[in-house]
């Protein structure tokens, strides 16, 4: 690129400054500031900090003993496992199936991706109607099938499952589309060669599709893990404030609860820092475990 057009450097500033001003003020600076906040004492969103905590790491010390934080971390890990199995696993299965049928690929892709564009808030309300005790869609359906007695899908025994199903359901299509794009890049000649060698359909899937898809699957796994840490809207609509009895807190919803409902702003900041650290560690681990070297 030796063009003369771009020899004069002054326009660089005009082009770059607006975007980077925005990101500095609303992204980079707050990110650093949030770490500092987590060591301070802040009792209201709008009030000034009252100096540093004594000791400065007090919030992190509290967190280790906080039973709700333990629940939030536990639930978040359950959420991560559920997204790995229920989203990436399901998406992989669907993608491999779609890749092996002739007609209708486009239709399935359109349908599967659809829930992703809908707001999680609307879906939360929708699933509230479905899981309603007396009587939502599911309990009505069970009644038609002849089951007697209503199931309370939101009690302590069912709450986490009721929470996980919509989250998994919504994002399967996301990973499906990424995997399908990956499958489309696999050369047709490989399959043809395999057919000549007498490979069955199933063998083609296990010896060509899946191995060549490995890096794409790895990307999906990292996205699913970090995505599970960002879930907020749907759980908050379906199970506000961790109800029933704090059993459905996730790290994100607990952070909001501490900040807004308990006015423990510095503690909320500390939880946010933990979310970031968890995200970094988990994606590094996933990368180590699953990523294959480039050929």
């Amino acid at each position, binding site marked *: 690129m030796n*063009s003369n*057009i*771009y020899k004069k*450097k002054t*326009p*660089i500033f005009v*082009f*770059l400054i607006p975007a*980077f001003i*925005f990101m500095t003020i*609303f*992204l*980079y600076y*707050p*990110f650093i*500031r*949030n770490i500092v906040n987590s060591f301070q004492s802040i009792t209201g*969103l*709008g009030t000034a900090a009252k100096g540093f905590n004594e000791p400065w790491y007090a919030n992190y010390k509290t967190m280790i003993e906080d039973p709700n934080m333990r629940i939030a971390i536990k639930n978040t890990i359950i959420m991560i496992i559920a997204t790995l199995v229920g989203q990436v696993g399901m998406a992989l299965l669907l993608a491999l*199936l*779609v890749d*092996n*049928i*002739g007609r*209708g690929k486009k239709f*399935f892709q359109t349908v*599967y991706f*659809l829930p992703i*564009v*809908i*707001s999680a*808030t*609307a879906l939360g309300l*929708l699933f509230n*109607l*479905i899981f309603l005790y007396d*009587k*939502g*869609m599911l309990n*009505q*359906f069970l009644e038609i099938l002849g089951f007697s007695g209503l199931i309370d899908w939101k009690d302590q025994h069912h709450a986490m499952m009721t929470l996980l199903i919509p989250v998994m359901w919504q994002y*399967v299509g*996301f990973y499906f*589309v990424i995997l399908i*794009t990956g499958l489309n890049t696999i050369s047709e000649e490989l*399959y*043809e060669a395999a057919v000549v060698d007498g490979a069955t*359909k199933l063998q083609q899937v296990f010896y060509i599709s899946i191995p060549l898809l490995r890096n794409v699957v790895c990307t999906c796994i990292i*996205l699913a893990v970090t995505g599970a*840490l*960002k879930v*907020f*809207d749907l759980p*908050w609509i379906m199970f506000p404030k961790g109800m029933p009895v704090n059993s459905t807190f996730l790290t994100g919803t607990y952070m*909001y609860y501490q900040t807004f409902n308990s006015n423990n*702003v510095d503690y909320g*900041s500390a*939880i*946010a820092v933990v*979310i970031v650290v968890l995200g970094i560690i988990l994606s590094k681990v996933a990368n180590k475990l699953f990523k294959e070297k480039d050929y």
Partner: protein
Amino acid sequence: MSKSGKRKKPSIGKMIAYVFLSLWAITTLYPLVWVVINAFKDRRLILTDSFTIPVGAKATLDNFRLAFNKLNILGAYKNSLIISCTVMFVVMLFAGFAAFALVRYHFRGKQFLYNLVIAGMMFPIFSTIIPVFRMMNSWGIVNTESTALSLMATALPQIAGNMSFAIVVLIGYIKSLPIDLEEAAYIEGCNVYKIYFKVVVPLTKPSFATVAIFTFLWSYNDLFTQMFTLRLKNQWAITRLLGELTSMEGTNYGLMASAVTLVIIPVLIIYLCLQKYIVKGLTAGALKG
């Protein structure tokens, strides 16, 4: 890429695949169809008879009437459109600039800036929202009576949050453009700004479309920011209104069904019309998640 050539008749395996895929398609579509059907029913029927299609005496528009009269859903739509359109246009303008400069210019620190952009995609909103809120509070644009300021306070962090994703998508596309056209324009006497707007932007249209749709949808669907920045009822955007519905109208399930219907129908129409750009943008923006 058709593989149909090597198979003659539908095998049993293929039949099973179709059945399984169709089942999943039904679980995806049916809940949405179900809520739309029930929006047209009397609120009591939803709890007893939710599977029938409302025709004749069963059909009613009461739920929608209530949504418009009681909830001020149009006002919330207006607020949503103001926020999301602002976010969309500002992101397109500034991300386009930045992507262009990061592709075409060579200068010291370029790699550093690029890494900053990538890092920007990794920050979860949780880790920035409190300082952002406190900062905007000191500027007086949150916790205020003014609707215009509150809407702006919602748009600002969303602009920053979508900027890195947009820059990455646009960089990928602008990189693939041949430089010849820009050189031709330069020889004819255009300056850099004119080249950008008259040559680069028109060629980058498909990628801008992806950025526009994604930015708009993210902003429209984002509840978390709105829970911090929109305090008063008349400032609420549509997602926030939905979020408060349970505490406002706890057991009016008919109203809920109609509100959900009114929120998802426009999005579904946008999706079906523009899905080409949406699916294409997804792979580029996959990192954002």
